[in-house]
C-alpha cells in the first residue's frame, strides 16, 4: 500500500493542483454570497451584451452577468458530479464485491453481464437511464451514476479477486470466516487505496458527463443552472457573445483538470524521469585502415546510465582486431561486457549507450557514427548478426521468408522472385527441410533450433565478411546446439566469412574458434590461441578452464567455483 500524497505534493505540479483545488473550493463555498445579486439582477437595458469591463463574459437574454452565473454554477455542477460519483462508486463496489464472493457459475454470469454493459459507451448508458428517471437534475445524477457502475464494478471485481486469491484470505476461510467477514476484514481494506484514486478520476468524468447531459437539455432545468445549462444558453447566442458559451466551457475543462490532477496526485507520484541519452563521444578516426584487417577496435569504452542517471562504464578500454576468415571467440561471465563489445562492433547499441573509442571500424567504416547510405548497404550485406534468443529476435508479424528476402531486395535490388529463390536455397543450406513451406510460416510456427538456423540464414542472404554470433546457442538444448554450430561452421567454410563468437562457455569456444579473448569486468584479461588454452597465464582464464568438467573429473567432489579474486576456490565438502 502506497501513500504517494506527500511525495507527489512536493513537485510544481502538486503545488499547482493544491492551489487549483483550493481556489475551486473557495468559489464553491463563497460564490453565491459574493456574486448572488449580479447573477440574478435582471436589466432590460443590458440584454445580450458582449464582454465589457462591467461584464467580462457579457450578459444573457435577461441582462444578467454571465461571469457571475458561471462562478455560482460551480457549486451545483460540482455537487451533482460528486453525487453521481457517489452513486457510481457505491453501486460499483457493491456489485463488484458481491460478484467476487458468489459461487463460481453465478460469478461468471455476473462478470459476463458487467462485460456486456462495459461494451457500451457511458453516454449511451447515461441516456438510457435518463429515460427512466426523466430530464431533471436528480434524474441525470442517477443516470450518470448508474452509467459509471459497470466500470467501477469491473475494477472492484478485478482488484477484489486478486485479494481473495491470496493466502491470508484462504487461511481466514479455513478457520471459518464467512463471506461477509472476508469482505469487511480482508477485501475492503486491501482495495481501498486504488479505489480512492479511481474515484477522483471518475469524478472528473462525471463532471464532463453531467455537463453533456445538461447541455442536451436532459439535466438541470431552468430556472436552475449548472455549467452545461449555461453552455446550452450561451451557444444559442454565440454570434452575439461567444464568451457566454466559452466561459462555462472553460470552467468545465479547468475543473475537470483539477479533479483529474487530484486523482493522479493521490495515486502514483510522478514516475521517474526517463533515461537521458548521451551523444557518443566519437573521437574515433574513420580511415582506410589496414585492408588486411576486418575489424579494428582500439580503446573501446561503453557506458550506460544507471537508475539514478549516472554513467556506469561497462566496457573499459577494449582493443581487438579480426582478420578476414578468422574465428574469434570472446568468453566471460555474464556482465563481463562481452555482448556490449560485440554490439558496439555491430553498431547496434541503443541511443542510451555512450560510446568512446580511439578506433571502432568494420572494413574501414566508422561504427561510432550513423553510416552513410553507401556504407549502410555494405553493412547490410557484409555484416551479419545472430542473437541469443531466436524467438524474440525474429519479427513475429512477418513470415520467415519475408525476413530473409528483404536483405537482398533492399540492399542488392534483387527482384522478388529471385530473392525468394535465393531464400529457399539459403534455408536449405542451413539444414531446414521443406524450405519452401517454412518460408511462408511465421517464426512462432518453427522450433527453436529451426528459428536459429533461419536467423543464420538471414545473415547468409548477403555476402557476409563477418558474422557476429552473440551467444547463439545459449537458449537451445544441447543436441540442437551442436546442429547450430555445424551450420555456422559450414557457412564460414562456404563464404570465407570471419566469425566473432560470444559465449560464456569456454569449452564451446575453444572447440569452435581459432583465437579466444577472455573478458572480465569490461576488460580483456587474456588473448590466447584456442589450441593453447592449457598454457594460459592469467589466473582467471586458468580458473575458467579448470571449471570445465571432463571425463576424468572426480564426480564425488563438488565442482570448482571461481571466487572474487578470480582464482579457483575448491570447496571442501563438509
Amino acid at each position, binding site marked *: 500500500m502506497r501513500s504517494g500524497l506527500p511525495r507527489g505534493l512536493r513537485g510544481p505540479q502538486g503545488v499547482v493542483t493544491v492551489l487549483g483545488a483550493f481556489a475551486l473550493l473557495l468559489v464553491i463555498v463563497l460564490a453565491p454570497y459574493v456574486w448572488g445579486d449580479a447573477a440574478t439582477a435582471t436589466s432590460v437595458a443590458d440584454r445580450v451584451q458582449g464582454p465589457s469591463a462591467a461584464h467580462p463574459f457579457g450578459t444573457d437574454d435577461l441582462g444578467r452577468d454571465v461571469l457571475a452565473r458561471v462562478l455560482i454554477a460551480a457549486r451545483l455542477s460540482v455537487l451533482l458530479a460528486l453525487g453521481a460519483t457517489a452513486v457510481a462508486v457505491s453501486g460499483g463496489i457493491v456489485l463488484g464485491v458481491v460478484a467476487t464472493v458468489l459461487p463460481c457459475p453465478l460469478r461468471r454470469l455476473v462478470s*459476463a453481464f458487467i462485460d456486456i454493459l462495459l461494451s457500451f*459507451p457511458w453516454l449511451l448508458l447515461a441516456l438510457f437511464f435518463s429515460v427512466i428517471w426523466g430530464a431533471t437534475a436528480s434524474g441525470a445524477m442517477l443516470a450518470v451514476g448508474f452509467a459509471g457502475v459497470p466500470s467501477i464494478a469491473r475494477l472492484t471485481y478485478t482488484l477484489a479477486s486478486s485479494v481473495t486469491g491470496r493466502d491470508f484470505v484462504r487461511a481466514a476461510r479455513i478457520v471459518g470466516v464467512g463471506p461477509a467477514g472476508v469482505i469487511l476484514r480482508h477485501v475492503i481494506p486491501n482495495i481501498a487505496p486504488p479505489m480512492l484514486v479511481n474515484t477522483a478520476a471518475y469524478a472528473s468524468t462525471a463532471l464532463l458527463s453531467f455537463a453533456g447531459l445538461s447541455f442536451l437539455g436532459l439535466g438541470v432545468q431552468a430556472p436552475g443552472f449548472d455549467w452545461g445549462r449555461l453552455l446550452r444558453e450561451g451557444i444559442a447566442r454565440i454570434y452575439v457573445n461567444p464568451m457566454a458559451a466559452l466561459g462555462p466551457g472553460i470552467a468545465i475543462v479547468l475543473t475537470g483538470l483539477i479533479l483529474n490532477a487530484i486523482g493522479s496526485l493521490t495515486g502514483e507520484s510522478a514516475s521517474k524521469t526517463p533515461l537521458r541519452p548521451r551523444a557518443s563521444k566519437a573521437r574515433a578516426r574513420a580511415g582506410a585502415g589496414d585492408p588486411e584487417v576486418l575489424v579494428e577496435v582500439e580503446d573501446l569504452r561503453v557506458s550506460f546510465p544507471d537508475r539514478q542517471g549516472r554513467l556506469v562504464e561497462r566496457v573499459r578500454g577494449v582493443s581487438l582486431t579480426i582478420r578476414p576468415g578468422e574465428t574469434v571467440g570472446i568468453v566471460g561471465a555474464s556482465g563481463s561486457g562481452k555482448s556490449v563489445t560485440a554490439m558496439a562492433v555491430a553498431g547496434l547499441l*541503443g541511443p542510451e549507450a555512450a560510446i568512446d573509442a580511439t578506433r571502432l571500424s568494420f572494413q574501414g567504416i566508422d561504427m561510432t557514427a550513423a553510416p552513410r547510405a553507401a556504407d549502410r548497404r555494405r553493412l547490410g550485406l557484409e555484416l551479419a*548478426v545472430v542473437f541469443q534468443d531466436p524467438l524474440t529476435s525474429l*519479427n*513475429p508479424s512477418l513470415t520467415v521468408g519475408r525476413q530473409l528476402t528483404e536483405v537482398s531486395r533492399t540492399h542488392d535490388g534483387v527482384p522478388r522472385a529471385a530473392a525468394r529463390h535465393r531464400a529457399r536455397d539459403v534455408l536449405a543450406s542451413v539444414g531446414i527441410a521443406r524450405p519452401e513451406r517454412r518460408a511462408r510460416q511465421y517464426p512462432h510456427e518453427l522450433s527453436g533450433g529451426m528459428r536459429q538456423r533461419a536467423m543464420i540464414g538471414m545473415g547468409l542472404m548477403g555476402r557476409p565478411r563477418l558474422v557476429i554470433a552473440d551467444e547463439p546457442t545459449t537458449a537451445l538444448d544441447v543436441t540442437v546446439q551442436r546442429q547450430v554450430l555445424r551450420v555456422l561452421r559450414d557457412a564460414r567454410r562456404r563464404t570465407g566469412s570471419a566469425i566473432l563468437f560470444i559465449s560464456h562457455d569456454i569449452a564451446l569456444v575453444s572447440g569452435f574458434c581459432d583465437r579466444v579473448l577472455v573478458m572480465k569486468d569490461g576488460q580483456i584479461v587474456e588473448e590466447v590461441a584456442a589450441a593453447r588454452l592449457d598454457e594460459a597465464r592469467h589466473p582467471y582464464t586458468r580458473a575458467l578452464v579448470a571449471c570445465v568438467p571432463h571425463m576424468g573429473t572426480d564426480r564425488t567432489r563438488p565442482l570448482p567455483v571461481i571466487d572474487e579474486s578470480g582464482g579457483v576456490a575448491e570447496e571442501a565438502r563438509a
Partner: protein
Amino acid sequence: MAISPATPTGPTPAGPATGPDPARRGDRHALPRLSPRASFVLRRLGRALVSLAVVVVATFLVVHLVPGDPVRAALGPSATPELVERTRAELGLDQPAWRQFTGYLSGLLHGDLGVSLRSHRPVAATLADRFPTTLVLSLLAFLVAALGAVPIGVATAVAARGGRGRAAGAGVSWALSGLIAIPNFLLAVGLIALFGVTLNALPVAGWGGAAQAVLPVAALAVGPLAYLARIVHVEMLAVLETPYMTTARGKRLPARLLYLRHALPNMITAALTTGGLILTGLVAGTVLIEAVFVIPGLGSTIVSSITAKDYPMIQGVVLVYAVLVLGLNLLIDLVLATLDPRSSIMEG
C-alpha cells in the same frame, strides 16, 4: 475474459476445421475440433448475440421502469382519459407482460418498431432517414482520427527514442494530453467560436455539404486522435526496444522499412483494440456533436424523443445505437483475428 456459458450455441458457419495446430496448445474451453481462429470467432459471435438479447430485454423493460404511468407522462396532463386509454391500447400496455414481450419480439423480427407518439410516423422509417447521417459522421471522424494518430504516434516515438527531438516530443505529448482532456462538445463550441464566429470561414450548423462536415468531424475526431496517438506512441516505444528491431537494424534497413514493415504490424493489435473502443465512443459522441451543430441524425432523435417521452421512438433509437455498437465491436474483433498472425487475442 469470461464468456457466458451459453456460448457458442448457434449454427456453425465455419468450414471444416484444419485441426489443432501442434505449435499452439488450444485452450480447454475451445471446441476440440475447431481451429483457434474459428473458435474465437464463434465465441465472439455468441457473445454478441447474448449482448443483443440483453439489449432487447432492456429496451422492452425501459417503458415499465419509468416511475408512474408512462402514457400519462408522454401525453401530458392535458390529455383526456379516453386518449390515454386509447394510446395505452395502441402500445399494447393493457395486455399481460409476457404477451407484450412476445408482441415486441415479433415486431422486431418483422422490422416493426412501432409508431411515434409525436409524429405518428413509423419509428423504423424515421430511423432509416436518420441512421446514414450518424454513420457517415462517425466513420469520417474515425478515419481522420486513425489516419492522423498513427503518423503522429510513430513519429514522436521515433524522435523520443533517438534522443533528437526529445523536447519537441514532450511538447507534442503535452498537447495531446490537453486535447484528450477536452470533451468533444466543448471543443465544438471552441471551433464554432473560432472558425464560425471570428473567422467566419465555415458553416456552423446543418448537414449536407462537405464544408458543413468539417467542423463536426473535427470536433468529434480530435480527442480520439490524440488518445490513439498516445497509445501508438507508447506501443511504438515498446516495439522499438524489442530484440527483433535490433535484428532489423542489423540488416541496415532504411527507416521507411524499419518502421513501417517491422515495427508497425507489431503494434497494430494494441492500436486496433483501442481503435475499436474509440469507434464505439465516437458513435455515442455523435449525440452531443449533432446537438451542437444541429445535425438531423440519430443523436438529435434520441435527445428529442427522451425530452418528449416518445417511448416507441426511444426504444427504436436505443436499439439501433446498441446494434451499431455491438456490430462495430464484433467487426473489430474479426479484423483483429485476421490481422494478428500470433492470434494472441484469441486466448481470451
